[in-house]
């Protein structure tokens, strides 16, 4: 594996050091972040571009990474121009547990190792502890530099910041006081990239859907009238 993709980096950042897993409560936002990360990578590689209303192909040539190329083919095959948020939701809906795919890539690259761990003496679960942890440290160092430096961030780093914010990684890195002091800077950087904004929209919609009141008797979401 060459340079880690943004999808790879956010998964590395989301893995807990103690369990070697992504927190189950964060699994859904991991899928959104991975989908967003793939689009971001294709954009940085000059294969897609976006405007305020849609995402579109600018170069159909494969990038040489099957994970990214499969999404590129899907975008190229779609006859209508769709917004970035639509593509993120499509990917999440149709690709199941994509975090497993990314974890496998990272194991093959030697960044993680796969371990089967037992819990409650009977059940086993696969964990993915980091080998050296170097990639995580580098990603965190870049994020801290973006947050606490006044300089313009690189496009890659501002995109990674948006994934870290959407997945709660940022909250885990900073104290509440640091978050408060850096909130304007973070907000300014998050707004720069269109796909970053789309990730936030999809994640916000996911949280809103989870919070929707449910009629437990019937088991259906309760209709609310505005």
């Amino acid at each position, binding site marked *: 594996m060459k340079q880690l993709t943004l999808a790879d980096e956010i998964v590395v950042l989301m893995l807990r050091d103690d369990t070697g897993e992504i927190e189950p409560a964060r699994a859904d936002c991991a899928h959104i972040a991975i989908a967003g990360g793939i689009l971001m990578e294709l*954009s940085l590689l*000059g294969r897609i*571009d*976006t*405007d*305020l209303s849609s995402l579109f192909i*600018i170069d159909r040539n494969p990038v040489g990474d099957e994970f990214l190329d499969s999404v590129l083919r899907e975008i190229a095959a779609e006859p209508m121009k769709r917004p970035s948020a639509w593509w993120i939701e499509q990917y999440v809906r149709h690709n199941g547990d994509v975090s497993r795919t990314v974890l496998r890539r990272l194991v093959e690259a030697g960044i993680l190792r796969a371990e089967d761990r037992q819990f409650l003496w009977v059940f086993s679960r696969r964990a993915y502890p980091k080998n050296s942890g170097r990639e995580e440290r580098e990603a965190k160092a870049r994020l801290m530099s973006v947050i606490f430096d006044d*300089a*313009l961030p*690189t*496009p890659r780093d501002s995109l990674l910041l948006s994934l870290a914010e959407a997945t709660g990684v940022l909250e885990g890195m900073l104290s509440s006081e640091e978050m408060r002091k850096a909130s304007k800077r973070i*907000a*300014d950087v998050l*707004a*720069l*990239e*269109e*796909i970053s*904004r789309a990730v936030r929209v999809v994640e916000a919609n996911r949280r809103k859907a989870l919070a929707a009141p449910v009629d437990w008797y019937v088991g259906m979401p309760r209709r609310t009238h505005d």
Partner: protein
Amino acid sequence: MNCRKFYTEHENASLEGFELEVRSEAADGVAIYRISGRLDAEAAASQGLQSAVGSAINGGNPRIIFDMRGVTLITSAGLRAVLVTAKQAAAANGGLAIFGVQSAVDEVFEISGLKQFISIALDEAEARSKLGA
């Protein structure tokens, strides 16, 4: 007044509907790029905007002005090219100022918050002033 002025005209990049024209000039230590058309990924790459600006910065002209009176549309990749230019210029102790932003482009600048990072001027004189020229 010691000033050096030259004009470099680039050919239109007409690639299946993507058109960008860039004219560059340098005067009083400021490199000005007069841009017209769509500023998107293909146009910026085909016109060599980024490499031309990089050459100016590396050649001792880190104060850059983008005249965007003729820019009709800007995509994410075009915006990224602007940001990278600003970053490179700032790193060389110069800077980037933009003037002549049209409404469609201004909408993108507003939503992306670009104005937090880059000086937007009303006209060329103000752009020069913002760069200390």
